[in-house]
């Protein structure tokens, strides 16, 4: 084995079998193999291995792709007439508060607030791609979920209903926040687009509520403080669409 390897090395034999040698060298190795039947047989076997792999698995290429591997079209929920109508109604209803929504976006962001936004965005990114375990407690046990999270956060929390905005509750989970437990509610529209609402106790008592917006990577986050709780709504949506959902959340929680 040592003699032939002085002229053609093992990597070159592999590359020859895979047609990954450039032409001058390819011909040289081919000529060398003509005088080395043992190595030539080995290379031939490797080629047959490749052929066998193709024979075995190429048929998969022609199989139709099962539905679970096809992503639903991420169409805008506003394109649905009924929802568009609902959105207009909601839009009119909150017209008066729009001023301070916009005002709020210019607010100074403190470090702790940005940490809050980041935690919300990270929790969003971590849990929304989950196929099997997106939530700890599912929407079918909503009463239990809300009672449990309220108990852990030490304050009454609610899971807003966002079906008018096209989103249904998937469920929720308990998360560690920077100063104690936090909660995450997950929502999903008919096409699989997911939003999360991250809730934590604010600690500072009732402060001014204002909608603020931030982007963490590609995730948009609207966040605000409402009495004892801080909220962050995260989603991979256009800012305007996310704002509409954020407003729906706010109005659900402040009927």
């Amino acid at each position, binding site marked *: 084995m040592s003699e032939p390897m002085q002229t053609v090395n093992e*990597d070159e034999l*592999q590359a020859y079998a895979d047609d990954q040698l450039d032409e001058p060298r390819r011909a040289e190795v081919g000529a060398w193999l003509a005088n080395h039947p043992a190595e030539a047989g*080995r290379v031939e076997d490797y080629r047959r291995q490749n052929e066998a*792999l*193709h024979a075995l*698995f190429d048929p998969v*290429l022609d199989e139709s792709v099962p539905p679970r591997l096809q992503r639903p079209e*991420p169409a805008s929920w506003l394109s649905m007439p009924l929802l568009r109508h609902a959105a207009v109604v909601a839009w009119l209803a909150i017209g008066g508060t729009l001023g301070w929504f916009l005002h709020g976006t210019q607010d100074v962001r403190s470090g702790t607030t940005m940490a809050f936004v980041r935690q919300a965005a990270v929790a969003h990114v971590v849990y929304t791609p989950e196929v099997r375990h997106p939530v700890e407690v599912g929407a079918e046990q909503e009463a239990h979920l809300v009672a449990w999270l309220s108990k852990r956060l030490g304050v009454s929390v609610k899971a807003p209903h966002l079906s008018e905005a096209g989103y249904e509750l998937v469920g929720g989970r308990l998360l560690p926040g920077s100063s104690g437990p936090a909660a995450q509610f997950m929502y999903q529209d008919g096409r699989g687009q997911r939003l999360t609402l991250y809730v934590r106790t604010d600690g500072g008592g009732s402060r001014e509520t204002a909608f603020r917006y931030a982007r963490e*990577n590609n995730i948009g986050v609207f966040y605000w403080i409402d009495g004892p709780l801080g909220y962050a709504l995260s989603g991979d949506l256009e800012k305007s669409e996310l704002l509409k959902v954020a407003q729906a959340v706010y109005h659900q929680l402040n009927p």
Partner: protein
Amino acid sequence: MEKFDRLIEEHIPRLRRYARALAGDRTRADDLVQDTLERAWGKFHLWRRGSDLRAWLFSIMHNVYVNGIRKSSAAPMLLPLEEDALNVPVRADQEDGLQVRDVHAALGCLSQDQREVLLLVGLEEMRYEEVAKILDVPLGTVMSRLSRGRERLRQIMAGGAVPALRVVK
């Protein structure tokens, strides 16, 4: 986003083919593809536009696969035998040649590292440099896994049917 979905879609058949070879059965393979796609959709902003999408997807699948094996040691996708368990006698002349159905079984006897390299090169026909990038290992490691994996496969095939636990010394 929609454009990205369409770009990904083109690669799904090849991801499925690779997953089938890697994971063995159809359900596990499609689970692997689904997890890979979910991650790709979730992380698409991390993909550098213009870079090789196929390589990116395959590297995600590699990570999903390896993490899956680490996490669920109770249910490995294929049961690779220990390195030393396969001390197979090599028959001098290989009259049997390679039987396609045996290759399938023999694949399961390779270590996971070797199997991945063998499939990326032999089935996906990727350049060695690309395989190194996808698996995040040096080129030399790819070459040695390829060489050992193929030789192992060859010996298994030469010894007839997969000699699963036949230890000869």
